[in-house]
Each structure stands twice: as structure tokens, then as C-alpha cells.
């Protein structure tokens, strides 16, 4: 491993503490409280409150800025694979492929030819993405990861959509490990049973602090509620008592 490997560095990073009552983070809530942390290249399963994980992913992909301090990425970062929002723009799938090709420097025509053969719904390439179904956008979001020259791979969401046909799932099964191998991968998902085996370590966000664990922390979907917070799931959920 050389020094020139992907890396994320958090320097005195403060995230949260919204000043506006209508902000996405409630007033006074601190997601990350002045954390200094170097995250070396590895495959991390992100563990923590769903809102905290989402905020951290937002920060990582540059969708939002830290309140104070700095997050520094060494290496090019992917878009959050699994979120369908970045693909819900009023352009066709082919236009989006062209946009990603221009952004990440790959051959759009080659990618389009290949995508037509692997996508479960190739018509998404000629359909306006804001009118396509969520499953169609998700399939494109996942399939595009194959072409990105990204050093940091971010997966956020549920990749396993029940509408996906088995052959596409198997294609993902082959390609996803390839896509994240040797890269810094941050995986945040509720489908822990599906994606957790891809990770080697855990990146834990809890009570404003962050830590790296050398093992995969057994995960339930809401593992580490902040103090005083409700779990937010139905009381008859088997996880409810277990977590409390």
C-alpha cells in the first residue's frame, strides 16, 4: 500500500447545529462534534442513526458543507450510488450517461452500448429520468458505477430492489465487488444482510463522535439512537425491544 491511496480526513469537523428552525437538522442537534479522524483506504460499513449516516454521506459527496472544520478527500469520489435523486433530472438516461462520461472521463458511446445489454429496462436510456420509475433510475445508478473512475465509492441506499430481475442481481453480484475492490468504500444501507459482507470494517457515528472498528459491528437498522431519541419504529417491531 503506497501513501498515494484514497483517504478521507476530518479536521475539527462540526456538522449540524442548525441555526434555522426549518433546517434539515433540528436546532441544537450535532451530528459530528468536532471530530478529527483519518479514514484510510478500506471498505467501511457505516453504522449509526439513519439521519446521521445520511448527513455524513451528504458531507462526503459535497452535497452539503460542514458547519465548521474541514473534510478533505484524497481521490475522486463517486456519486452516492443507491440514491435515485441525482438521476431524477429532466433529461434522458442517455443524456445522463453523457453527463457522467464528461464528468468522470469515460467513453459514453461504449458505455451506452454496454448498458443496453445489461440494464433490466434499457428503455430508461431514452426516457426522461424524472418520469422513469424509481427502480429504473436505481438500476441506472448502480450500473453506471462500473464506468466511474472513482477512488472513493459511496453506496447509500437499498440496492436490492424487488423489481430487479434475477439476471441483473447476478450481474451486480459480479460487478459490485469489482467496483469497490482496492478503493475506499463507504456503504450505508438498511439492507445490511445484502451489502454488509462487502465491508471489512465499520465506520461508526454515534452521539456526535466517529470511530473506526476493525470488525463489522452487528447491525440492526437503528443501532445507536442518540440519547433521548425514540427509535422511530413500530412497537411491535422485534428490533424495538432488542435495541432499547
Amino acid at each position, binding site marked *: 500500500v503506497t501513501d498515494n491511496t484514497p483517504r478521507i480526513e476530518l479536521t475539527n469537523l462540526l456538522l449540524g447545529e442548525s441555526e434555522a428552525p426549518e433546517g434539515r437538522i433540528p436546532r441544537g442537534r450535532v451530528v459530528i462534534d468536532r471530530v478529527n479522524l483519518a479514514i484510510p483506504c478500506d471498505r467501511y460499513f457505516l453504522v449509526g442513526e439513519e439521519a446521521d449516516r445520511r448527513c455524513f454521506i451528504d458531507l462526503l459527496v459535497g452535497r452539503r*458543507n460542514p458547519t465548521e472544520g474541514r473534510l478533505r478527500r484524497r481521490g475522486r469520489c463517486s*456519486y452516492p450510488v443507491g440514491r435515485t435523486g441525482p438521476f431524477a433530472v*429532466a433529461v434522458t438516461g442517455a443524456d*445522463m450517461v453523457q453527463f457522467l462520461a464528461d464528468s*468522470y472521463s469515460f467513453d459514453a458511446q461504449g458505455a451506452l452500448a454496454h448498458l443496453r445489454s445489461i440494464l433490466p429496462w434499457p428503455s430508461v436510456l431514452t426516457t426522461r429520468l424524472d418520469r422513469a420509475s424509481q427502480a429504473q433510475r436505481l438500476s441506472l445508478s448502480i450500473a453506471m458505477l462500473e464506468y466511474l473512475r472513482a477512488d472513493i465509492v459511496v453506496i447509500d441506499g437499498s440496492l436490492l430492489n424487488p423489481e430487479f430481475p434475477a439476471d441483473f442481481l*447476478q450481474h451486480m453480484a459480479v460487478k459490485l465487488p469489482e467496483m469497490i475492490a482496492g478503493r475506499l468504500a463507504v456503504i450505508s444501507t438498511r439492507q445490511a444482510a445484502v451489502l454488509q459482507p462487502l465491508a471489512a470494517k465499520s465506520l461508526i457515528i454515534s452521539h456526535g463522535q466517529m470511530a473506526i472498528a476493525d470488525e463489522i459491528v452487528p447491525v440492526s437498522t437503528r443501532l445507536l439512537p442518540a440519547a433521548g431519541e425514540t427509535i422511530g419504529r413500530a412497537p411491535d417491531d422485534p428490533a424495538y425491544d432488542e435495541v432499547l
Partner: protein
Amino acid sequence: VSVVVVRRERNASLDDAIGADDAKRIAIYSAYVLGARDSTERVALEGDVAQFELARRRGGKPQSTRPMLWSGPSDILNMPALAVGDSRPTAPLLQILRALWTVSLRTDVNVDRLGAFWWVTEPLAHVVLITITILFVHGADVYDMPSFPFAVLGVVVWLTFRTAFIAALSGPAALTLLMDHPSVTRFAIVLIRSLKGLSVNAVVATILLVVSIYFGWTTLPQDLLKVQASLVGAFLFGLSLGLTAQLGAQHYSGLRKVYPMLLRLLAVISGLFFVSEQVPGFISNFVLWNPLLHLSQFARSGWFFTYESQDTSLGYVLACLGPAACLGLACAIADRRERARRGEYA
């Protein structure tokens, strides 16, 4: 690459739902999901049920099993870390602007039926309206300049300013979702939307002026560079003031109602209908405080052999543009910081 595809074995109970009526099937589904040992497994079991039900509704043979993707890390996952491909954490700005350019154009075309048609129609409508007004007020010539190309140059400088101002004021708009892509910033989107206004107006002006030349209403330009520089100056003014106005509107949203009226007032004194040399001194002393008037007169001086503006000052334009650009950039940075505090999109 060795990837193990295994099948879930514990969901044999879903087989009971094949051929069952609705009530019984729902009961079987509930019992199946409640058999989960924790919430993680419950998500997986819910996926089984969704897959099963989807296949049933599609009329195919429901599958009570579905492939699981990974039973454990495959060998490829243990490969050593790769060196960073590019030392820059984001793509170069020019590369991103080029990528955004196409998406921005396509979005405008797709978002409603008027689409690209309106890009051309709006400047044309302005030119026609202003030309008619000029014809009424001044006749065929304005200060030795033919009315039509006179109107075209004035309108294009003004519209370039206005388009850039509004693009900066309204922010990323329909392209907001693209900010989930790490290399795409709010500033890049605003910049590309403003640049789009500049280029569309320049193209429209070129077409109209070529038509004017064809019909003999005007001649080839005296100094094309001067015309182009005026358009770029108007663009920079629009972008800078738009960024400033955007921050102002963040603090007091009522300003968004005031801006359109300010734009109209500014339009009146920006040389759409006149040049400063033809109005009384006390008026020209007042309107020459407006740098946009200087720019439109630069553009006309650059085009017409019959007109050389005596009132304009390049130094004054630069003296206004420098602080305006600094203020605009400072406001863009302040806006980014405020959004970080509020937890909004970057």
C-alpha cells in the same frame, strides 16, 4: 472472480401462498415476515415477499426463493488499495462546465414544450417591441444609427445582464439534484446557466445583425471585439449582482418582489431607447452612473461607423465591475457558509 450465489432456504413457507386466496396470502406474508430474528433480517424477508407478490401479480410463476448476492467477501475484495487516480478530489471546473452545459440545455428543452423555442423567441420579442417603440419615438434612425440594429445591440446587452442576474438569483433550479454529484457545485451550475444566457443572446444577436446586413440596414462591424467585450461585461455584471442579490434575498425574502421592479427601472436607464449624447445634460449626468449604459454604448460604438460615444469610460466600467465581482464572489462564499449552518444543499 468467484462470487457465490446462494438461495435463501428458510422461506419455504411462502410456497403455501401459491394458490391461496387474498386473506390467507396476507396472513402467510405477515407470519413469514414476523419470523425475522432482527430488523435487518426483516428487511430481507420483506424483500422476499415483495418479489414473490410481484411475480404473482405479473402472472408468472411465483418464486419463493430469490438469489442472495453475497455469502461473504470474494477474493477480489482482498486486493490491496489502489493508488489515487487523480490527485484532485473533483473534476476540473472546465470539465464540469462542459458536462453541465449539455445537461442544462437538454433540461431546458425537455422541461416544457416552449423549451428552446423560447430562448430565441424572448430576445426576438424584446427586439421587436423596442424597435417599434424606437420607430415611434425616433423614426428610422437614432442618432445616425439605423433603428433595428440599434435596438438589437441595446437589447442583447441588456438581456445578457438580465439573464445572468436572474440565473444567479434563482440558483441551480431544475439542476439542484445534480449537486449530489461530488464535482458539481452550486456555483458551477449558476455559472453555466448564466453562460447559457450569454451564448444564446450572442447567437440571437448574430442572426439578427446578419439579417440587418443582408437587407442593407447596417454594415459589418467597426470593432467586433468591442461588441463582444461589452456582452462579456454585461454578463459579469449580471452574475456578480445576481449573486449579491441572492444573498440579500436569503436574509429578507421580500427582496424577491423588489428585484423585478429594480430590473425594469434599470432597463429604462440602460440605453435600450437612447444614447447618453442625445439626452439633456442633467439626464445624462444621472444615467451615466449606470455602467450598463456605458456597455451598451461601447457595443454600439463597436458596431456603427457613424457613432463613437464620447460619454463612455472604460475606466469607470472597470472600477464598477471589479468591486461588483469581488462582492458577488464574497456573497457566494457567505451564502455557502450560511447554507452549511442551516444544513441545506451546499
